[in-house]
């Protein structure tokens, strides 16, 4: 069954889905990788982003990508509120490890139930002109449904990378992940920096959710399917490394795609997590971790 045509298509499909994985994983990379906050509710915020895109598309005819972009400030504000609750309830008291995890489980359920009550339990899809369209470059077929999420994922990754490496707040976020006490001695409030970073991670969920509903139908609890995958990507890429998250997303996407094409799709998770184990055995800090 092997052919060059299949191989090229599998690699391109893997890269495309990898770009999307990056968009979904970036928020976790910031919150878990940089801030050490195990925000297990992040996929639920992604689904909230999907439903926001769905509602704006259904009632006002907005393009999902536009909605994703427009709602990033709203999600940022939501992130500020969630972090404030987390900080006051757990982090300030030094109870963030286990009780903080329970808190985010609670947030996950609250978001799911709220969506359930508002939209019901049916699967929701979105209408956009480019969904269902595709084009060919030589033997390689590319679907807009997958190309756009990939491009947007790449753009968000680059933007976040530039923000973290070139701006004052970005460097402060990196500093808070390394030594918050030292940051305080420099006259910067680490709690404020963490709040900004966490809110930023939730803001990415708005765009990631819009991309998710472009790719396929969603229902309120579908975010749980992504929890294992996104944490695996962050660990594989190296905790807190944005470029590592992108690389790991593409690696995972390509490996899944190649496995699904040539060895049977049921092997895809086993091969992906096998690679994660091998990488962690060789480089415990992940591909780009320090």
């Amino acid at each position, binding site marked *: 069954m092997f052919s060059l045509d299949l191989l090229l298509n599998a690699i391109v499909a893997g890269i495309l889905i990898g770009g999307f994985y990056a968009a979904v994983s970036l928020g976790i990379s910031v919150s878990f990788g940089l801030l050490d906050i195990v925000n297990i509710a992040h996929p639920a915020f992604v689904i909230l982003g999907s439903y926001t895109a769905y509602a704006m598309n259904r009632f006002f005819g907005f393009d999902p990508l536009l909605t994703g972009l427009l709602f990033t400030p709203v999600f940022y504000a939501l992130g500020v509120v969630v972090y404030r609750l987390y900080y006051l309830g757990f982090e300030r008291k030094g109870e963030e490890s286990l009780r903080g995890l329970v808190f985010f489980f609670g947030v996950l359920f609250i978001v799911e139930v709220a969506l359930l009550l508002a939209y019901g339990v049916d699967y929701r*899809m979105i209408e956009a002109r480019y969904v269902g369209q595709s084009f060919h470059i030589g033997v390689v077929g590319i679907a807009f449904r997958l190309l756009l999420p990939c491009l947007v994922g790449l753009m968000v990754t680059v933007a976040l990378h530039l923000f973290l490496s070139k701006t004052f707040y970005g460097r402060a976020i990196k500093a808070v992940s390394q030594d918050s006490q030292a940051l305080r001695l420099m006259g910067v409030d680490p709690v404020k920096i963490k709040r900004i970073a966490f809110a930023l991670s939730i803001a990415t969920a708005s765009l990631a959710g819009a991309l998710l509903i472009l790719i396929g139908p969603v229902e309120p609890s579908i975010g749980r399917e992504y929890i294992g995958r996104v944490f695996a990507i962050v660990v594989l890429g190296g905790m807190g490394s944005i470029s590592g998250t992108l690389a790991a997303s593409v690696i995972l996407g390509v490996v899944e795609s190649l496995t699904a094409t040539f060895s049977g799709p049921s092997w895809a998770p086993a091969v992906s997590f096998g690679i994660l184990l091998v990488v962690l055995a060789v480089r415990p800090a992940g591909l780009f971790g320090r």
Partner: protein
Amino acid sequence: MAWHGQTGTRRRWIVGVLIGVMALGTAWAPAAQAAEPIKIGFGMALTGALAGNGKAALMAMQMWAEDVNKKGGLLGRPVELVYYDDQTKPAAVPGIYTKLLDVDKVNFIVSGYGTNVIAPLFPIAMERNLVLMGLFGMANNEKLKYKNYFQIMPSGPNPALGWSQGFFEVAAKQQPKPQTIALVGADAEYPHNALVGAREHAKNFGFKVVYDGKYPPSTVDYTPIIRAIKATNPDLVYVASYPPDTAGIIQAAQEVGLPVKMFGGGMVGLQFAALQTKLGSKLNGVVNYEFYVPEPTVNFPGINEFLARYQAQAEKAGVDPLGHYIPPFSYAYVQILGQAVEATKSLDQKKVAEYIQANEFNTIVGKVKFAPNGEWAKSRVLMVQFQNVQGSDVAQFKKAGTRVVLYPEDWKSGTLIYPYSKAQK
């Protein structure tokens, strides 16, 4: 005068109280005598992955209880549904049913929706020799052979085979006869069972299996799978999938351009308005299973009235606005239980079970007769083809013409547009 006046007031007050008490007593007497309700207990998926179907099923069951109570109840007693959310979790089932039986003291139990929540209910029902009405369980009783189990999904006495029989019967009649088939499905309970049947049919009908694969339910992109299938150049593709994969596979097939002669078979989700309206014309040509479609050949007494009432309430309740899949059957499985109670004039589990086993029932999904294993005595899985679907208007799916019945012959309402690519034009 004042004293007399006071006495008069007191007398009037006492008389008023007496009359009031008598009036209340008169009003309460029949209510007290109107006996306790007959309680039917169940767990239902009101949250979780299958909640869409669970909520619609519950609504239909409540409509049945309402209908029965309007007519005076069962055996002169009102019917009461006692239910809890099983969260689509099999692990929640034993606790729910133990409470229903031991605390709520229900008279009968019926299952929640789906194979996975029916399975853990068997030990409880078998231990107490209870009648167990099943709602859309696939081959749950194959190994247990519990005599008091009756399942309403019309997949016939051998569900794994009955499920895909129509797809293969229709394919085998085409000229020139297809030679090869690809089988693909999610790595989960239902697709596993459906693919077992499909493999056996492929062997019996003489189709060569050129691809046989399963994918994890968490798969996001289906294009690599569809490309791999395309590379094997099959004439037929049989898919056993759940709603999110169904949408992903159909979209990927469109984008890749799957040049097959027949495509579909066991795709869950295409029975609901949510996917039908969003996939729209992409559905044209897909051949898939159904249990009820509004074709003129598939018309049972009471079904149209039921659907009209259901559809009027559905949007407000946030459930499937068509209600063609689960709701009529969830109405029917309690309808059968009610008819058996009335006929036997008893709440005795053994008598009711024996009656259900021995008799045929007229329901809103037609005549129902059970085989010894509790499945329908004869399969009535419809194989339909999506034709003439345009845009995303839900109204087109409420009328005949968009899902034409190809099999069984008794219910046939149109002919297959063959090959798949022709129906898409």
